[in-house]
């Protein structure tokens, strides 16, 4: 018997605007709770940690913070008597049958809806290579494509890629016993669509249309890199990955270099699907759409959007493995410029902090010098003759 609790379990896929949705939910969690929609998260990556915990998935050391987080999240979900609860993280797409079952069981007698946002493979394949490069990988685009085409999926890249991207398989794993009308497939609109259309689809699917939501200050998140920028980042990885710990790589390389510097260069060529694998991807996409159609899912958007766009073959392809060094150099110069600006900013900040430390030290010294005087005054004030001495002293001071 189900309660009045509805759980929207968003299980993927990566690179489909999930970060933006999660940012909106996180920043509005208090106001949403007042409107009957709960997004239980005490930090922005709370559901990521819960997913790591659920899947026994180490992740560059951060997994230490994940211990017990899925069960804690599930407990909070079960404590809701009436209302909607949203859980969202894209890496949940890679959960095994057993892990998905454990997750579904842990949500108790909820009305569970499985939400899956999806984008066509022609965009997902290059995007996943970029994600690899933004996560310390030095794999070339050609090596990446070879790995994902290995039918045995024995490599780390191939097994992960299909785990989080193979839509019919993800839905099989996550819809164990869930009625098709409670499975919502949200497709990412094709290139050239209105920039707000994806959010409108999320909003409809998640039932957020009539709610008050504040979008101010929310980053659109996770921008893609151009071809020379991705090639440069891979070269940087070759040099720095052996010597940079993940905890340093994350803020300096991924955040500062990739997201805040290289992703801002919007004029360079965008990475596309390699023409050599286009027929294979077309055929695969068609087979997925065939497998998904007729299942009775609630499709927000259209299954045809998961097919490879018809005009893709006519578009130019710039190969990041063979791009001209001149273009990579341009991106490199822009990076050096940004690093210099950052170094100057940090130097100014350091000088300001040094000044503050100097001022605080002086204040501390001054305060210390006051302590004996204060003690003497307090001692005098406790005695009648002391109070008289103080009175005389104050008269003279005037």
């Amino acid at each position, binding site marked *: 018997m189900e309660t009045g609790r509805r759980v929207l379990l968003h299980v993927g896929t990566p690179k489909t605007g999930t970060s933006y949705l999660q940012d909106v939910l996180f920043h509005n969690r208090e106001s949403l709770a007042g409107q009957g929609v709960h997004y239980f998260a005490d930090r922005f990556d709370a559901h990521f940690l819960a997913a*790591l*915990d659920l*899947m*026994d*998935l*180490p992740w560059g*050391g951060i*997994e*230490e913070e*994940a*211990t017990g987080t899925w069960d804690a999240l599930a407990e909070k979900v079960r404590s809701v008597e009436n209302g909607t609860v949203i859980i969202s993280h894209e890496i949940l797409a890679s959960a*095994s*049958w*057993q*892990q998905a*079952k454990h997750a579904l069981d842990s949500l108790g007698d909820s009305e569970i809806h499985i939400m899956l946002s999806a984008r066509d493979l022609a965009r997902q394949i290059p995007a996943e290579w970029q994600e690899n490069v933004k996560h310390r990988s030095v794999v070339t685009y050609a090596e990446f494509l070879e790995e994902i085409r290995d*039918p*045995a*999926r*024995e490599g*780390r890249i*191939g*097994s*992960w890629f*299909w*785990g989080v991207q*193979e839509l*019919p*398989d993800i839905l*099989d*794993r996550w819809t*164990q*016993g869930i009625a098709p009308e409670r499975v919502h497939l949200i497709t990412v609109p094709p290139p050239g669509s209105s920039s707000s259309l994806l959010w409108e689809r999320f909003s409809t699917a998640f039932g957020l249309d009539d709610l008050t939501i504040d979008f101010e200050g929310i980053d659109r998140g996770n921008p893609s890199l151009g071809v020379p920028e991705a090639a440069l980042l891979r070269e940087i990885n070759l040099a720095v990955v*052996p*010597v940079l710990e993940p905890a340093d790589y994350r803020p300096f390389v991924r955040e500062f270099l990739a997201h805040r510097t290289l992703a801002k260069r919007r004029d360079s060529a965008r990475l596309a699907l390699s023409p050599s694998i286009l027929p294979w991807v077309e055929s695969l996409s068609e*087979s*997925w759409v065939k*497998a998904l159609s007729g299942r009775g899912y609630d499709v927000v958007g259209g299954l045809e959007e998961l097919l490879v766009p018809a005009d893709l073959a006519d578009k130019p392809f710039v190969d990041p493995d063979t791009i001209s060094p001149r273009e990579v150099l341009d991106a490199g110069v822009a990076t050096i410029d940004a690093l210099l600006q950052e170094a100057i900013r940090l130097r100014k900040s350091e000088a300001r902090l040094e000044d503050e430390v100097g001022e605080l030290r002086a204040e501390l010294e001054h305060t210390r010098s006051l302590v004996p005087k204060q003690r003497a005054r307090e001692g005098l004030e406790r005695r009648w003759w002391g109070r008289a001495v103080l009175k005389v002293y104050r008269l003279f001071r005037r």
Partner: protein
Amino acid sequence: MPATPAPTRGWGWAAHLREGGTTPWTSWSEPAAPFTTAHLPGAEMLELLRRLNEVGPSEPDRVDALLRTSPPGRGRRDLPLLGDTETRTYGPLPVDPATLSERELLRAASVLLAEDLLATVETPPRPRRRWSRRPKKSEPDQQRFPYRLVGSPWLTLPIREELERQGRLPGGDGYTVYVLGGPLDEVAAGAWRFRTFTNRVNPWHIWIRDAQWRGWLGPRADLPRIARWWASRVGKDRVEIVTDPALLPGLLGVDSVPGPWSVSAEGNEVARVIGQVLSVRTDLESQRKLLVDRLRPRLEKLEPLVPDAREVGVPPESLKWVETQARAQRDALVEAGYALHGDPDRLLPSGTATQGPDECRALALALSLLAGRS
């Protein structure tokens, strides 16, 4: 009323294994209806159960617990059985379970092995236990032979623990710092081996490859760095390099010192894969305690029962680089002018082992652990 699922050969094999069967998949033909509402476990879990049944019978609850797990972390899983009723045109390719690698089966075993260790914790983890335990009173020998023993913890930790057990605490007036060295290939292997019990670490062949790429074997295998650090703290004249462990008893004023833990390369690999799961399931200190205090004694008991144990050794493709590193370390220590106990050339690689863990034997150890043979 939901339709009863049709019997399949896969479910038939799973039921056979659940009852303790050992028939390989390719020799199995009987179909059966599902015995649970869950999805048929992947080929990797079923093959692991078959191998476990070959070791000996398991309690039914334990078998079900195994079948409720799936291989953790990254990598393929939920593999369908080749030749079973599979109508899907997507998903991982079906496999003959007999062809799965030992590495995949070991990974499949790691969740239940980790859960076994976690089940031994009766109370919530307590605050961190320090490696050094300090008795209340210092012994006379402590004053006669005040010491600090540093270097690769794989070599020094068992000695330090034994000395402390005898009441010989590190430190004391004017203590001497002994930097225990050895052939660099063994010291490097020791650095990895220690991490398999105390942290999350890559497989040996990747660890040594990355070290070569980085051009550094890390802090635990960098003796000049260790010596320099101590020299800056206590003065160079109180730092001494020991290249021959046989000289240590005389220097420390004891009859003998213990060697490293009696754990093979495969034992390290088992600890490593369990550590991957524990790193998510518990905090680092509890992980260390479980692996060092609970798993290690069990492995030490099992080691003699599983033949062909290997030592961890630097593979031939990295040996030349390690030799260059070793010569540089030797020269740096000699040039720095530290007192030396033993021939400095003992720091050069011994080359006694040239491989990492044997995955087949590592799986055998894991199966013995699962079967409760220690």
